[in-house]
């Protein structure tokens, strides 16, 4: 990075001379910032691959019958799309990229607690990704089970399930190690004076997320491993022909995979809680409520997994218990939404691109969450489960929730990470196009689902044709938006004007270090004397200054 010269009197982390040169300086680095950036590159790449597959799927759905591929190909594509998006994009997602880059800085630390372990989890992540890609080219061909690996189909299909499971297992390991690292970091590395309730809310959400990663991931790890063992050795575990119970597999899978949706959304909620105060330029409304609701979501999130199984043949008692808890888990999310809205009240709002993203998020996520309630209610879920209604719900929360905020975070912290400013106007245009395409694409799915279009269907009945075409057009609108967005960021990266230390006027610690930050983040570990969004002090200082000016004038 030639133009990252020495700025004034410090050397940023890009230019710091380590023991290694070139690529090695990156892939052998234990610096949390470099690891974060390596994740960023890897994740964005996988996102683009997954999104391209999604667009191909939409293209297939443009007409009835065969458009560009056969059913087997389509089945493999949605499986890969789901696996890539879930395990390689949204689950590592925000913690791996922005957690790594910013958590230590926001806590006032020089690095995470276990820097080498951190690099190891990056290698696991890449290793898992490579295995996933490799599995496509092995004997059996690309996996076609859907991302849920339901038995007994996953035991019967001839495709390469075991390799993909190995990949998922490795990725799980990566996720666990990251979580472990972050919990330890938060317990041990906070700057002096930073009590639990002086942590930025992003750190809180990472903390809650890390616990879910730690406690839930092993269960899916072992469950998937058992499926692979059963495939390889014929051990009787889940196969009904050998006495196994397919529904037990579903329990085991969702025990992890429901909490996993909170692994995806909690960090996004944390980022939202950072962006809103910064651009509203005031303290967050209900700090403690937001912090504690993260823990509440993590906790209650364990007891609702059965809502994915309402029509699976689970006992009726279990169905209503899980339904009840599903409604309870929505409450902490509601608390957050209300507190965010209230934070805008009497703020001094600067509607920059990151905030626009966040407003879009609140709207879209609320739709996703509220339709989650429809799915959580027993009677309606029986009708809607395994239809496009579910597909719509989870694209709203996963893509509109985590996906949008991933890119919002990129816009928010871009100046800090790269020391450059992007064009705000262009970014806002891109966001508007994306939201428009998003609604065209996914809102249509709600209607399709309600009218009885099942998911994972290669083909459809004539009455669904119009809506499918409309959705496909929506996906093209979305591509346009994303291309504009990426182009804008890329241009800024190359040619953008230099960013100052604190372009948005944020209060958390990352805005007190230069952009990009120096190798060790802080020259001196800061001592924390107030909460993370303490705009009071700033305001008071301003007032004092003005008073002083006044009195100075008076004296004249």
């Amino acid at each position, binding site marked *: 990075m030639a133009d990252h010269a020495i700025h004034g009197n410090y050397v940023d982390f890009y230019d710091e001379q380590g023991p290694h040169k070139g690529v090695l300086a990156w892939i052998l680095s234990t610096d949390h910032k470099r690891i974060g950036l390596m994740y960023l590159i890897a994740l964005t790449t996988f996102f683009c691959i997954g999104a391209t597959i999604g667009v191909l799927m939409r293209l297939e759905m443009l007409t009835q019958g065969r458009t560009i591929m056969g059913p087997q190909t389509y089945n493999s594509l949605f499986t890969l799309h789901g696996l890539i998006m879930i395990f390689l994009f949204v689950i590592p997602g925000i913690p791996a990229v922005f957690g790594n880059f910013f958590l230590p800085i926001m806590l006032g630390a020089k690095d995470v607690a276990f820097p080498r372990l951190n690099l190891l989890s990056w290698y696991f992540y890449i290793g898992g990704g490579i295995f996933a890609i490799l599995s496509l080219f092995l004997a059996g061909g690309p996996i076609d089970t859907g991302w849920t690996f339901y038995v007994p189909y996953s035991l019967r299909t001839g495709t390469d399930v075991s390799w993909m499971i190995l990949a998922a297992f490795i990725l799980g390991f990566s996720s666990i190690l990251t979580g472990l690292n972050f919990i330890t970091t938060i*317990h*041990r590395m906070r700057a002096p004076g930073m*009590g*639990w*309730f002086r942590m930025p809310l992003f750190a809180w959400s990472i903390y809650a997320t890390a*616990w879910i990663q730690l*406690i839930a991931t092993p*269960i899916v790890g072992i469950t998937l491993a058992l499926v692979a063992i059963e495939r390889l050795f014929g051990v009787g575990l889940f196969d009904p022909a050998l006495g196994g119970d397919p*529904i*037990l597999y579903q*329990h085991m899978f969702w*025990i992890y995979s429901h909490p996993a949706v909170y692994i995806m959304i909690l960090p996004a909620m944390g980022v939202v809680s950072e962006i809103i105060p910064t651009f509203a330029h005031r303290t967050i409304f209900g700090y403690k409520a937001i912090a504690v609701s993260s823990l509440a979501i993590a906790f209650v999130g*364990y*007891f609702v*997994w*059965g809502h994915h199984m309402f029509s699976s043949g*689970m*006992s*009726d*008692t*279990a169905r209503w*218990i*899980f339904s009840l808890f599903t409604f309870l888990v929505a409450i902490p999310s509601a608390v957050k939404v209300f507190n965010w809205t209230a934070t805008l009240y009497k703020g001094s709002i600067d509607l920059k691109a990151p905030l626009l993203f966040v407003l879009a998020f609140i709207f879209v996520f609320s739709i996703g969450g509220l339709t989650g309630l429809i799915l959580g209610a027993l009677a309606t879920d029986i009708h809607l489960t395994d239809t496009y209604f579910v597909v719509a719900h989870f694209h709203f929360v996963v893509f509109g929730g985590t996906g949008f905020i991933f890119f919002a975070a990129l816009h928010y912290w871009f100046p800090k990470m790269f020391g450059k400013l992007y064009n705000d106007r262009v970014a806002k245009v891109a966001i508007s196009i994306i939201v428009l395409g998003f609604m065209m694409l996914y809102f249509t799915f709600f209607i399709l689902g309600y009218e009885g279009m099942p998911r994972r269907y290669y083909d459809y009945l004539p009455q669904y044709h119009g809506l499918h075409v409309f959705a496909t057009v929506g996906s093209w609108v979305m591509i346009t938006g994303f291309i504009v967005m990426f182009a804008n960021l890329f241009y800024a990266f190359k040619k953008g004007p230099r960013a100052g230390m604190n372009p948005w006027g944020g209060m958390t610690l990352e805005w007190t270090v230069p952009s990009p930050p120096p190798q060790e983040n802080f020259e001196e570990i800061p001592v924390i004397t107030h909460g993370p969004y303490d705009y009071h002090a700033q305001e008071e200082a301003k007032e004092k200054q003005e008073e002083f000016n006044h009195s100075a004038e008076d004296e004249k």
Partner: protein
Amino acid sequence: MADNKLHTGSSETSAPHIVNYSTYVLVWLALLAFTAATVAVAGINFGGITLLIALIIAAAKASLVLNIFMHIRFDDVVFKVFVGIAIMTLLAVFIFTFADYIFR
């Protein structure tokens, strides 16, 4: 207060707790006794509670290992909280899964 309990900033400054050999040996003897008991009891049929007895004995053994061998008793509270979180989660997961099978 919760935040103070969870915080782990200063307690490690106290000197390390060294457990005597004799304590360990006593615990070991107790563990052997429990093992003998559980094998002996397995021979007798208590009907439905046979399994329960075996599990209670196993839990007693595990808690001895946790508390003494693994020093949970002498260590900082965070570790107790951590282990508590894991065990409670596991327990809850068992209860909710059985809520399906028992009412089938």
